[in-house]
């Protein structure tokens, strides 16, 4: 553990105290010795990157998941290992990131579900509507009790979620990424409600990775990283950049700025920052707009290009359209408008395979869902997407697939080096090496590298970074998306910050720093980018 949680002086004051919480899902250690202390009557922000273990910790608090180890107290009572019902009875209310609302039921039905008002054995729906309407008026959370959830906006649905917890008498409210789906006015409204609740003596835990929000609303901050609690800060005494540092801070030596500078500068003879090679771009994107699942513009009229021998890094808080951008470029997501060219060829209407043939390689952000077929062998995974190239007359060429596997396993140091093992049985780092071997161990012009080092060990990170640098030196164009700001800074020639579907800024890496980019990431600074 890199930091130990600050203990507050008076334990009687604590609404929540969790210590030494461990939780493992399959091979993922979501929490390792995580801790959390929340005082009564405060707004407490729980921050950290995706996968830092915040949601898991809150699931354990809410009784949805049992912890493997650790101790948990609520209002001074030991509640380790309790279940959902007990947590609700003790006044814990969790508003999940993915709404726990039944879309086909009405607002009132959802709110009273599990503790329905009755009259003579019947479910008294009128009473439910009445209660919900009264609660809505009292709290200022406006909802219409009779409408179906499916017909609500996300903002309304969230109000229903909060009312649901309040209906159950929650005095400790946990909100998981509540603003991810809200418009700015809705966020303001939410803050008003939360402050009012705090002033009434309720306790609020806010999970978020938006630092501007943390500064604006919270009293105290707990920072988590890789399943551990790394810091506990009083909001009034800190700055966004300090929090960001605690969130992404990493003990990997190579990602220091100096080393990155040494590695990048000579490669481009001091032209670091400017597009390295003048001439035709390898990847050109013009006016690209992509809709998300909620029909919102996740990528909003974006234009940029990547030159051969250049790494364009996209930084930004996750959920600002990076996923949609990469999927649209790879041909996995339909676009609303715009144009995509690879090496001057228009691929806008090409499918995945045609783009691949045009020279596009793609390291997807989620290797378990997209990048690998977990029950396929390493050798089969090494030809996924290239299976046509590795077959003759429709028959898989086992010799060449085996040969390819031997070559790639060696070249990319995949361990254990046995081609017949299913990808499922490899460690995260080696699974990622399989993906990288497949995508980079072939002829390509443009590489989309999305979260290339997510969830892999330190050794694999260094390996992957050096591979990306080698590819750049060989004249490949690389579009890198990473939630790790220092990774983007260490590898990129130019850095773009993506904020709400647009590039908030594009600067040469030499002119960028974590501090300067941080403000673009959280949306407090913007500049128009052509």
């Amino acid at each position: 553990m890199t930091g130990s949680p600050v203990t507050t002086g008076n334990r009687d004051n604590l609404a929540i105290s969790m210590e030494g919480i461990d939780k493992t899902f399959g091979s993922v250690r979501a929490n390792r010795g995580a801790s959390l202390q929340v005082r009564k009557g405060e707004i407490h922000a729980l921050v950290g990157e995706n996968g830092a273990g915040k949601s898991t910790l809150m699931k354990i608090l809410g009784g949805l998941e049992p912890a493997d180890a650790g101790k948990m107290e609520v209002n001074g009572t030991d509640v380790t290992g309790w279940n959902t019902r007990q947590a609700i009875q003790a006044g814990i209310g969790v508003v999940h990131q993915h709404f726990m609302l039944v879309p086909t039921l009405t607002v009132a039905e959802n709110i009273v579900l599990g503790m329905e008002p009755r009259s003579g054995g019947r479910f008294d729906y009128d009473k439910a509507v009445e209660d919900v309407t009264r609660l809505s008026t009292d709290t200022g959370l406006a909802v219409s009790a009779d409408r179906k959830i499916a017909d609500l906006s996300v903002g309304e649905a969230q109000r229903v979620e909060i009312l649901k917890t309040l209906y159950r008498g929650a005095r400790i409210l946990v909100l998981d990424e509540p603003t991810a789906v809200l418009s700015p006015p809705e966020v303001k409204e939410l803050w008003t409600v939360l402050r009012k609740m705090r002033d009434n003596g309720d306790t609020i835990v806010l999970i978020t990775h938006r630092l501007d929000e943390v500064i604006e609303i919270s009293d105290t901050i707990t920072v988590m990283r890789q399943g551990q609690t790394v810091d506990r800060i009083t909001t009034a005494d800190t700055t966004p950049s300090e929090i960001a540092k605690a969130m992404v801070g990493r003990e990997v030596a190579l990602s220091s700025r100096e080393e990155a500078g040494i590695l990048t500068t000579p490669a481009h003879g001091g032209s670091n920052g400017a597009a390295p090679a003048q001439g035709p771009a390898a990847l050109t994107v013009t006016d690209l707009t992509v809709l998300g699942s909620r029909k919102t513009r996740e990528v909003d009229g974006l234009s940029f290009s990547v030159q051969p021998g250049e790494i364009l890094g996209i930084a930004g808080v996750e959920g600002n359209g990076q996923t949609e951008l990469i999927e649209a470029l790879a041909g996995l997501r339909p676009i609303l408008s715009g144009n995509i060219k690879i090496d001057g060829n228009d691929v806008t209407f090409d499918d995945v395979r045609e783009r691949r043939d045009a020279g596009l390689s793609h390291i997807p952000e989620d290797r378990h869902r997209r990048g690998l077929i977990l029950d396929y062998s390493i050798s089969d995974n090494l030809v996924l997407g290239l299976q046509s190239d590795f077959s003759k007359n429709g028959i898989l060429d086992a010799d060449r697939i085996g040969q390819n596997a031997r070559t790639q396993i060696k070249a990319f140091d995949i361990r254990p080096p046995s081609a017949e093992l299913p990808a499922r049985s490899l460690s995260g780092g080696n699974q990622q090496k399989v993906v990288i071997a497949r995508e980079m161990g072939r002829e390509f012009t443009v590489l989309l590298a999305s979260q290339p080092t997510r969830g892999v060990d330190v050794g694999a990170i260094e390996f992957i970074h050096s591979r990306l640098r080698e590819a750049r030196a060989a004249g490949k164009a690389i579009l890198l998306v990473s939630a790790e700001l220092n990774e983007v800074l260490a590898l990129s020639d130019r850095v773009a910050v993506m904020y709400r579907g647009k590039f908030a800024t594009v600067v040469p890496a030499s002119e960028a720093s974590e501090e300067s980019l941080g403000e673009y990431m959280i949306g407090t600074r913007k500049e128009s980018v052509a």
Partner: protein
Amino acid sequence: MNPISFLTQMLRIAIPYLFAASGGVIAERAGIISLELEGLMLTGAFSATLGAHYSGSPWIGVLAGIGGGLVFGLIHAVATIRYRADQVVVGIAINLLAIGVTRFFLKLAFQSSSNSPRINGFGGSAAAHGLDNPLVWMGLLSAPVLAFFLYKTPFGLRVRAVGEHPDAAASVGISVPKVRYIAVAVSGMLAALGGVFLALDQHQFTDQMTSGRGFIAVAAVIFGRWDPIKAALACLFFAAAETLQIQLQGNQLIPSQFIEMIPYLLTIIALAGVVGRAVPPAALGKTGE
């Protein structure tokens, strides 16, 4: 065509459908696919025959039939909920098992591979047109009662929540498996009553006497969009079509096979969404990993 005889016959055909479709609706609203209605009906019919035969009382037959359906419903529930077995496979297995079990014990109990001895049924006076049979009334009432239960009681609300969004139900402390066990058990008993009616109405059990009626009920559930009342109306409609076919026998205008196809064709059309898409409960079939 005599309208009274038409209605009487339609009612006799519709009652098994009504029971089984109600059973299908409650299980599927809780998220468990009900392909086993056929087997549940068959078990119900056979258990009722055993009960009525050994006691001489049709009421004991009804109770025995319900018990048989309950046992098979619980097998389905344990396999799919506790052991996370594929619901479709289990449904088909229950159907095969029901055929085998009823045949085996038909042989064991009555030394016959085709039918049981005559048993006592309800009513039977020609003047009453079947209305002196309490099962007819129960069948007619099953859908409205189920509708009341689903839409007007706390447990009904929970069933609907569990079938649509089990995580949401679990997040407010509802035991999803418990709700599903109860729904499937009730489903078994209701569907079995459909078979009980058949056996008592025909005063005997015959091998495979349900002859696909359970699948017509499945069709009615889907065509009725998983709503008890609409499913019941679908049952009545299917029964009316069948009655028409029987009463027009000898008429070469529409071959009987085409009448037989109606429920199934309509269901396929409903699923393809040609006239307003049939959308199943969101969590239907998802008890596996």
